[in-house]
Structures are given as structure tokens and as C-alpha cells.
């Protein structure tokens, strides 16, 4: 039985994992870099250990430092969260060696799914549909040309070690093939130190739909339905929802079964996600498997009513799955918005800094998974995501209305965020009608970046607030002259403030 879990992560996901640990009566151990001494996961945990300097590779990616913290704290298990070491087979193996339970699949599943070509081959062998293309890496342009003749244009050239859009090239005309092939290889070499590439058919207007799966150590595997993740910017998801507006019950059952088959093909254990590309005419293809918890797991938790972190720990504890496929149902609709510290008006440039004021949304049907607080300085070293806002509604329409209400209530000052950009998405016709694919943000760019109307009266309110604030400050500097005019309210406020100030 796991009694103490070290969470090898930071930010919202570290806090989220610790919350489930606390509910299970499991003690939690935080690890932190020099930049994170004041971070929420350190405050939330029962124990906390410094594992090195601010840059990730010297701390959160430092396997030995993390293993050392696990040994000092006598943690039974390590939960890797997402990102960092969560899909690192060497880390999972190292935990095994040290007799520490790794909350996740075994190194074999991570390795197999980590190499895109091996994953494709494994899936084809298991009868899972993959995007038409090669199952071997391609070394020369001639082979590439032959393949393209077979599957037809357009095609994508992808790095086998790929990720984050690097080493990817779209080819629409046959005469672009040579130069694109060479450029993809050189980009792949630069980014991953490995110039292997392969070719896939390019799916026009693709939908990105994934299935959450859970598998225990006894061969039981089930899926928890789909998540629609097509709203992306710079190949990064911004909004996710379940059910997918594209889905129908037959397709859901079929894709769910395929997802379970894919997981079983690598003898998967724990929580994982099978990502599919789906075309407008509902052809679907295996894209990749994420062998960890996803950022967007909360929408599934809300609609299916299962705590996925608890299930991960139950499986790591060697318990069988507590439910079968038939026990699971979807209730209502859930949407997640990722709140980033970034400037949507300036090419989504990250905007780290000090949170000066924050008001979080509350009430029926909302969940807010974040980690920042007033006075917290968001470090420059890590991901710009600061909160995940999750809404639920009886219907998709209600879930959207509730998300709009929540975004209206959400106030963060001190850093720029994408909150108003997300509000715009909620107002976009393609989104409210559920008619969208991965081109959504590009397609609706003009509307999304148009600024909201603040008429003269709205502007005048801004002026008055600032002007009154300015005068009040001036009066504080010269109290004898202005005090009377101020009225008792200002004095009261000053007095109240003094009580608050240390």
C-alpha cells in the first residue's frame, strides 16, 4: 500500500495530484527548484525538498536529484504529472531499480509509444488504423517520391522523434517534395539530434480527438470516452471539451474499442490517452499515445465522475479496476479553458511576472485548477499555463454560457493573460455551433483579435477610477490640506488597510 507519494512536478498539476493524495490519506512530498521556493506545491505538500537550480534540466529533469529526494523522504511512489519526466522510460526504469513505484506504465510501453515509427508499426500489427504512410524511416528522396505516388498528395513529413511541431513539413505540390524533405531532416537533427523522418498522408481539416483509457495489472482495460482538442494555437491545445460535437454513439463505441485495443497492444498499465486524427467525413486514424495524465483530464473526470489520479494510484497499488466499461456513462457536457500568462495581441508572447490581484470564479458547475496567488511571481523558466478553468453544464450550450460567466468573473492583474481571447472564442459562431477543426484559430483570426467595444462611457469610467486614485494618493502625501474633503470613507479605508498591512 502506497503511504507517501513524491510528486516529480510543479505548478497546477503537482497541487492537483497532492489534493487526491490528501483525500486518500496519502502523504505528499514536493520537490522544487531554486525558482520555486514560494510556489504553491511546496506550501501544499507535507514535505518539500530542493532539487537544484531553476533551469528544468538541472532540477525537474534531474533524475538523480529526484531519486535522492524520494529516498530521503522514504516515499513509496513517484507521480510524474505531465511533461518533465513523465514520458521518460529511463526514469521509470530507474524507479523500478530503486524499488520505488512509478505511477504510470512500465518502461516498455513508454519506449514503444515514444518512437513514432515503432508505435505505428505496433498499432498496424494490432489492427488499429493509422494515417496512410510509411512504417519505416525514409533516408532518400527517391523512396519518398515513390511513397507519395502510392498515397497521394498532400502529405506530411514528420520526425520520428518529433513533438511540438518541429521537424514537420506539409507538402502540397510534388515539386516541393525534395526541398521539404531536406529541410525536415535538418530541422529534426537540430531539434532532436536525430534526422529520421517518415511520411504520412495529410488529413485536410483534421479534428483532434482523443480517448482516455485506464488499464490495471490484470489485463482489464476500459476507456472513459473522448475529448475534443481541436482548438489549438502553435500546435498547443487551448480549449478541450467532452463529448466532442463531432461524435456520434456508434463512432464513439467503435473508437473507444480501438483505443482499448491500442492500449492492450503495449500491455498498458495506468492512465493513458490515445490521440486520433479524425477527418470531416469521420475517418479516424491513430496519431499517438500519451503514456501519462493529460492536461485536459478534468473534463473527463467531470462528465464520467471518476477521479483519474485516484485511479492511477489504485492501479499502482495493484488493485483491479473498480468498474467495467458498462458501468461508465457520460453525464452532461464539460469544457476546459487553459489560462496562459501570455499576450494574445502580441503573437501569444509569454508574460511572466508578479500577480498583483486575482479573483477566481466560483459557483455551480465550475472547477479551477491553478497554483498562483496574490504576490506570487511566475518564474520565467517554466510553462506559461497558470490555471485550467473547467465548466460543466447539462448541455453544451449551458457549459459554454457557464464558461463565459466564469471568464467574466476571472480577474488577474499584474501579468497579461489570454482570458479575453478565450471569451472571444466562446462568442465565435463556429465554436458555439460546434463546427470547428484544428484550423479554428487561424480561420477566425480576425474576429478573435478584434478588440471589444469600450465606448466613451466605459473609457470615462477608466479615467475616473484612475484619477480619483491619483488624487487620493496625492492627498495621503499632504494630509492636512485635503483630509476634510475626503470624507470619512477614505479615512475608513485607510484605517482598514492599516489593519491588513504587516
Amino acid at each position, binding site marked *: 500500500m502506497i503511504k507517501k507519494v513524491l510528486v516529480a512536478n510543479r505548478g497546477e498539476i503537482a497541487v492537483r495530484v497532492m489534493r487526491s493524495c490528501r483525500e486518500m490519506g496519502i502523504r505528499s512530498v514536493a520537490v522544487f527548484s531554486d525558482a520555486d521556493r514560494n510556489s504553491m506545491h511546496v506550501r501544499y505538500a507535507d514535505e518539500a525538498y530542493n532539487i537544484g537550480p531553476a533551469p528544468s534540466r538541472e532540477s525537474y529533469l534531474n533524475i538523480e536529484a529526484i531519486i535522492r529526494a524520494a529516498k530521503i523522504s522514504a516515499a513509496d511512489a513517484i507521480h510524474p504529472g505531465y511533461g518533465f519526466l513523465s514520458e521518460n522510460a529511463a526514469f521509470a526504469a530507474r524507479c523500478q531499480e530503486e524499488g520505488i513505484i512509478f505511477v504510470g506504465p512500465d518502461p516498455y510501453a513508454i519506449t514503444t509509444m515514444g518512437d513514432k515509427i515503432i508505435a505505428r508499426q505496433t498499432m498496424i500489427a494490432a489492427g488499429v488504423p493509422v494515417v496512410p504512410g510509411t512504417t519505416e524511416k525514409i533516408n532518400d528522396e527517391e523512396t519518398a517520391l515513390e511513397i507519395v505516388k502510392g498515397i497521394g498528395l498532400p502529405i506530411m513529413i514528420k520526425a520520428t522523434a518529433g513533438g511540438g511541431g518541429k521537424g514537420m513539413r506539409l507538402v502540397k505540390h510534388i515539386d516541393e517534395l525534395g526541398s521539404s524533405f531536406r529541410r525536415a531532416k535538418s530541422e529534426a537533427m537540430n531539434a532532436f539530434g536525430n534526422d529520421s523522418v517518415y511520411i504520412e498522408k495529410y488529413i485536410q481539416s483534421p479534428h483532434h480527438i482523443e480517448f482516455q483509457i485506464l488499464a490495471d495489472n490484470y489485463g482489464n482495460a476500459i476507456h472513459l470516452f473522448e475529448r475534443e482538442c481541436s482548438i489549438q494555437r502553435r500546435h498547443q491545445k487551448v480549449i478541450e471539451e467532452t463529448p466532442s460535437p463531432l461524435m456520434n454513439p456508434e463512432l464513439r463505441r467503435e473508437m473507444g474499442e480501438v483505443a482499448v485495443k491500442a492500449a492492450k497492444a503495449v500491455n498498458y498499465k495506468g492512465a493513458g490517452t490515445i490521440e486520433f486524427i479524425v477527418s470531416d467525413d469521420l475517418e479516424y486514424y491513430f496519431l499517438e499515445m500519451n503514456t501519462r495524465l493529460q492536461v485536459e483530464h478534468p473534463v473527463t473526470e467531470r462528465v464520467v465522475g471518476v477521479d483519474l489520479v485516484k485511479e492511477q494510484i489504485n492501479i499502482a497499488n495493484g488493485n483491479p479496476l473498480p468498474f467495467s466499461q458498462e458501468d461508465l456513462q457520460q453525464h452532461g457536457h464539460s469544457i476546459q479553458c487553459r489560462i496562459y500568462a501570455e499576450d494574445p495581441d502580441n503573437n501569444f508572447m509569454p508574460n511572466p511576472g508578479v500577480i498583483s490581484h486575482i479573483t477566481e470564479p466560483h459557483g455551480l458547475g465550475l472547477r479551477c485548477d491553478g497554483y498562483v496567488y496574490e504576490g506570487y511571481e511566475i518564474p520565467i523558466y517554466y510553462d506559461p499555463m497558470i490555471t485550467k478553468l473547467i465548466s460543466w453544464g447539462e448541455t453544451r450550450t449551458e457549459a459554454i454560457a457557464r464558461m463565459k460567466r466564469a471568464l467574466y468573473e476571472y480577474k488577474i492583474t499584474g501579468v497579461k493573460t489570454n482570458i479575453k481571447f478565450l471569451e472571444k472564442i466562446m462568442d465565435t459562431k463556429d465554436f458555439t455551433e460546434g463546427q470547428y477543426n484544428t484550423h479554428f484559430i487561424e480561420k477566425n483570426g480576425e474576429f478573435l483579435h478584434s478588440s471589444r467595444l469600450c465606448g*466613451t462611457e466605459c473609457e470615462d469610467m477608466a479615467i475616473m*477610477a*484612475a484619477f*480619483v486614485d491619483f488624487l487620493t*494618493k496625492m492627498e495621503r502625501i499632504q494630509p492636512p490640506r485635503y483630509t476634510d474633503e475626503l470624507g470619512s470613507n477614505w479615512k475608513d479605508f485607510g484605517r482598514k488597510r492599516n489593519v491588513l498591512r504587516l
Partner: protein
Amino acid sequence: MAYEVNLGNRSAKVEVLNRAGNKVLLDIDGHKYDIDIAMVERGVYSILYKGHSYNVELIEGESSKKYIVNTFAKTFNLEIIDAESKYISSRNKGMELEEENLLASPMPGKVVRIPVKAGDKVTAGQTLIVVEAMKMQSEFKASHDKTVLEILVKEGDTVNAHQLMIKLE
């Protein structure tokens, strides 16, 4: 006394005509507003005007006269102009052109690469410096053909928002 307030590109004349506690009577560009205004949290103002409830959030900028102002619809830069500001502004008039010769980082981050050195002649569009923040690299490029005068940071340095990095001429 009337002040000039710059809100984005707009310049407005503002004057407090009367005030008693929360109740303030202001004149903005000739329009009179009889408002009930209260600071409800640090930097958060609630304004009631003709029954309507408005919320405005302020963050003080580099000086006590500069603010970033959030309304429900939009975020503005705001500056209150008094005699002192006017003097500074008139004194700086002649120097304004120089600003495009000063390259500052818009956000905190870390310098990952400086592909130029002092004395280099650079052409418009050429990358001068690469700054990384939150896993994303931003390249800063020359807007015109210039000469690099001085480089004030080095690779690996952490920079603050608005920190001057390169001088050109």
C-alpha cells in the same frame, strides 16, 4: 484644477467639481458625471453611475501618474499629466527619435543568443538577440539598417521587463 489624462490615444480634460465621501462629481471633456466610487479591494474600484455598476482595476505603472487600467471590455495605458509631466515631456521631445535605437526586452526572460557584436553593421530584419521566457524563444530584429553601438547584456543573463539590452545608431 483640470488635469489632462491620456488614455490610449485619447487625451481628456478631467476635473473634480465636488466631492463628499464616496460621492464625486467630475467633468470629463465637458460631460458631467455624478458618481459613487469606492475602492473595494487594493486597486479595485466599484463605480455606481445612474444605477449602473462598473468595476475598474488599476495597476500602478513606472510612476504614480501612470496606470494600466482594466475595464470589462479592454485594457488601457493611462497617464495623468500635470505640470511636472509636461516639463519632462517637453524636455524629452528632442530625444524621442532615439527610442528606436534602444532595444529593450518587453518581458522578463533569459538571453540565449546574441548573434551580433558591438560595431557590427546590421540590416533591417537581421536578428540581434534571442530571449527565452517560459519555454518560448523570441527573436528581436533590427527595424532598419543600423550599427550596433553597445551590447549591455551577455548570453545567459536574466533580464527584467523593459531592461535595455542593445544600443544602435
